[in-house]
């Protein structure tokens, strides 16, 4: 937001690009989980564009992003976050976009030292070079600490009016925001990508391990964001809704997976991912019963819905707490 504002203040026409990889936190989490409904249910990129009065182009890069995540040249961060490769990929896509749409250069909001993996001073030229953007990539927030780029050399922007911010502190940016009269802004970065999340990353690794291959479809990575994931055996996994919003979301997958819920007592909807024997389904029913209000009963009814919509009811004894060991939780 601030980088765009700095450049717009110099009379340059700016439009926004937002890449959707499938791993963005905000939109999906807000949509799925009931308990997030008190937060502003907005897409921050759209909101920022509207505040700035600029157009925003949201680009679906789900398919292309797979090669970045599956085989990152520069490796992963603390979890499954391929931050440097991700940045190179996105700047490369932005370079393609400006060529196709008649724009002259790219700006990003990067600040030297703000992120440990992808925003160090030594990584900045790597992103510029390996993305193919080279000196068409301008970072207005820290430009004074970097070699002049083409927009500065050509005088399209005044380098003297750019900034030299470094480090993790957001105080300089907050002061800039105040000076620009910007009172409301999205919270500083971190946690905007599921791949930086320890628990999500563990689920992704589990998915790849169970498949025997590092690959995914959009539905796979969406489902990793939802519910409790319990893998009692290597060949199947249960996804159990934690609240009503998640239950509604999982309803949408009843044609792709066997689903089950406790029909004699209030309880969550669950789907099962894997090839199942009758014994596995019975076993799964006992797990699901554990998460319903009939968990302390001797017997509960579990309704099982096949992918074709046919239903049957079985009676099971819910597992006790100690019968669902923590190791099953992905």
């Amino acid at each position, binding site marked *: 937001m601030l980088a765009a504002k700095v450049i717009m203040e110099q009379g340059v026409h700016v439009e926004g690009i937002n890449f959707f990889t499938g791993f963005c936190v905000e939109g999906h989490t807000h*949509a799925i989980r009931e308990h997030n409904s008190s937060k502003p249910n907005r*897409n921050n990129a759209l909101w920022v564009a509207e505040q700035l009065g600029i*157009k*925003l182009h*949201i680009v*679906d890069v789900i398919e292309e992003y797979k090669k970045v995540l599956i085989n990152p040249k520069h490796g992963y961060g603390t979890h499954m976050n391929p931050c440097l490769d991700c940045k190179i990929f996105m700047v490369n896509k932005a370079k393609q976009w400006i060529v196709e749409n008649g724009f002259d250069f790219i700006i990003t909001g990067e600040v030297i030292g703000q992120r440990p993996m992808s925003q160090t001073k030594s990584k900045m030229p790597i992103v510029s070079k390996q993305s193919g953007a080279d000196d068409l990539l301008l970072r207005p927030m820290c430009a004074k600490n970097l070699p002049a780029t083409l927009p500065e050399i050509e005088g399209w922007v005044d380098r003297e009016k750019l900034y030299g911010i470094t480090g993790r502190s957001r105080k300089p940016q907050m002061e800039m925001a105040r000076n620009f009269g910007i009172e409301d802004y999205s919270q500083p970065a971190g946690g905007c990508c599921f791949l930086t999340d320890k628990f999500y990353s563990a689920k992704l690794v589990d998915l790849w391990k169970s498949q025997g291959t590092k690959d995914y479809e959009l539905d796979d990575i969406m489902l990793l964001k939802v519910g409790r994931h319990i893998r009692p055996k290597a060949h199947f996994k249960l996804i159990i809704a934690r609240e009503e919003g998640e239950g509604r979301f999982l309803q949408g997958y009843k044609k792709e997976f066997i689903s089950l819920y406790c029909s004699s007592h209030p309880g969550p909807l669950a789907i099962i991912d894997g090839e199942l024997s009758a014994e596995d389904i019975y076993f799964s029913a006992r797990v699901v019963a554990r998460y319903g209000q009939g968990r302390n009963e001797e017997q509960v009814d579990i309704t099982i819905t096949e992918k074709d919509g046919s239903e049957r009811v079985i009676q099971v004894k819910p597992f006790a707490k100690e019968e669902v060991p923590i190791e099953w939780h992905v």
Partner: protein
Amino acid sequence: MFKQKMMQVFKETLNARRLLCPLPVIRTQDKVKQLQPGDLLEVICTDPGVMHDIPAWCRINGHTVLETSSGNHEYIITIRVGE
């Protein structure tokens, strides 16, 4: 006598059910590119976030939201494509 110029308005429906934001916005954006100014697009979604996101996208890109409605966990937004 006067001549009344009749404009043929094209109306298309986009099924964005089960998609979570920003995918309904992306699909809307892609569909609008295929339409002409004045055409109408009805987008049917299941993510309540579209009630904020699609109108915001329309505002910044010069399109008009004519109508929004919801019911039975579905959200329907009708857009008139701008210039």
